[in-house]
């Protein structure tokens, strides 16, 4: 069941999600990494980062709140160890990059350019911009545009996806700004900012106080974002994600307009989830008469009244 990532063909429309697969190696005992669309690696930055103190996680109804703080080895160690391992394993890597300034994103993209195993770059613009009082790039179309333009310039050839935050007034305007600046596709969505308070200590559970909410609790929000972006930008590939736990969930995202999906938090409960969901999605598509995943993209946008069962014309 093939899909596309920008101009690149991938063998499955199901990918992992950034931050929920590390750099792939830890999932290797539980699934066939080479059969996934791609391994979307945890956001890498220029320098090694310790991440935030603990507690970093709180389980919530149908979800979880996390504030890891992008703990990671930095681009040097990533290029020396993580990416070569994925390439040697025969897996495709969609590398998520993050930074606090436009130039950092550009440098990360140039460092990655041409690396073995790299099939796409996901630009995580949901980190605070150190130059504009910590505002998140993805909350401002102009800031998002500047980052995507810099990444595009640093590597004109690689498929580039902008990962958007749902915590905005108008996600379509941010998506459009990214596409106008050279993004090939949109990854939607990142976590929603949330809070949990411990009623014993009378303090926030997380050391960082607030954290990113993920899991099935955010699925309707994610689906709405994919729906809106696809309606406004029907030719833009969308990597849909947010609380996908089974094939029917994944099908909803395809029907809303996603060309492929990422499976994130579900991996914590079932490390085989991306492989299982790929299988379930194939069954769900076939069950509705779709012979190819691409035939179902955006299918829910058709006018009401037409049959719910898809018939392949001709």
């Amino acid at each position, binding site marked *: 069941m093939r899909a596309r990532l920008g101009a690149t063909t991938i063998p499955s429309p199901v990918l992992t999600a950034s931050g*929920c*697969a*590390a750099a792939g190696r*830890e*999932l290797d*005992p*539980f699934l066939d990494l080479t059969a996934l669309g791609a391994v979307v690696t945890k956001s890498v*930055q*220029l*320098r*090694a*980062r*310790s*991440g*935030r*103190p*603990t*507690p*970093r*996680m709180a*389980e919530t*109804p*149908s*979800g*979880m709140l*996390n504030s*890891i*703080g992008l*703990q*990671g*080895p*930095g681009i*040097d*160690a990533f290029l*020396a*160890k993580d990416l070569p391992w994925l390439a040697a394993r025969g897996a495709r890597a969609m590398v998520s990059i993050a*930074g*606090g300034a436009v130039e950092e994103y550009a440098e990360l993209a140039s460092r990655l350019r041409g690396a073995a195993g790299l099939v796409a770059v996901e630009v995580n613009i949901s*980190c*605070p911009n*150190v130059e504009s009082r*910590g505002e998140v790039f993805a909350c401002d179309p102009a800031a998002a545009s500047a980052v995507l333009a810099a990444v595009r310039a640093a590597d004109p050839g690689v498929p580039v996806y902008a990962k958007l935050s749902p915590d905005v007034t108008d996600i379509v305007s941010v998506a459009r700004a990214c596409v106008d600046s050279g993004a090939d596709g949109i990854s939607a969505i990142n976590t929603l900012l949330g809070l949990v308070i411990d009623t014993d200590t009378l303090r926030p559970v997380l*050391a960082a106080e607030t954290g990113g909410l993920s*899991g*099935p609790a955010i699925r309707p929000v994610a689906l709405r974002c994919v729906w809106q972006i696809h309606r406004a930008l029907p030719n833009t590939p969308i990597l849909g994600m947010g609380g996908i*736990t089974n094939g029917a969930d994944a099908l909803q995202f395809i029907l809303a307009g996603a060309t492929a999906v990422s499976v994130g*938090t*579900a*991996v*914590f*409960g*079932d*490390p*085989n989830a991306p492989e299982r969901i790929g299988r379930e999605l194939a069954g769900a598509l076939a069950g509705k008469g779709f012979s190819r995943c691409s035939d179902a993209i955006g299918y829910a946008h058709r006018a009401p009244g037409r049959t719910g069962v898809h018939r392949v014309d001709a």
Partner: protein
Amino acid sequence: MTAMMSIPLPSVPNVKLLKPVQVRAQIVHVRAAGAYRELALHAPGVGVDARPGQFVTLGVGGESSALLLRRAFALSGVDGNVVSVVVAAHGPGTRWILERGAGDVMDLIGPLGRPFPEPPPGGAALLVAGGYGAAPFVGLAQRLNAAGHAVAAVLGAATADRLYAVHDLAPLTQVLSVTTEDGSAGRTGRVTDVLPELLPGASAVYACGPMPMLRAVAAQAAACGLPCHVSVEEAMACGIGVCMTCVLPVIGDDGTSAFVRSCVDGPVFDAAKVRFDDISRLPGDLHGAGAMRANT
């Protein structure tokens, strides 16, 4: 070009660990153990090469559950394809597990994490547990006995019903001391009250229990110049090294400290390498801490 940096890891026991497997495990039997229950599960391939100190995770709640994250349990026993875990009621996830019975099937992953290392040749081991922290110690004591090591144990809990493995450990230990905070069994007090009597006869200390207990035991062992291996219990989301939730600050072989994952780099650590005072803090000398100040 910046200098090559990699996250330094603490030294680990030189053992070859088999990859974990994910299986549908059927509960064989459930045994009451004071305030806890011990579940024995038929989990083919999990126990074959599992060692004391390693753990398994269980999916909870069933397919339509609002509980997404797995629960981690130290292996309390291995018998062929049957593995055992001790479950205490903590919240909705563990309560769901405690409602399962013989014949029920659960999603189980294991063995996970790094086991307890062997003590120095011929040395006597002192095992120190708080509550169900004693779960891995019956298997560890059996293994140590088989290797010719003398074993002593101190088991402590708030109340008698929160002690675990007192009867199972009795035949495996030369000295077995029990403490409870309310005096309902053994000596009134904490495990740390008994340790000064037992530490002089030991050549290595193994501790498993709540973090404040581990910290206190580690300090007492260090004061006696004894190696001390602690098994930590940190909140985990995945248990397999992906989520970066269960980290604690640990000193690596090169002297650099880093946040390391207790699920794959632990749960057993050399106590001398764990920076107990800095748990839940971000010390400035931690690997990568500088980048956090620039951009949080």
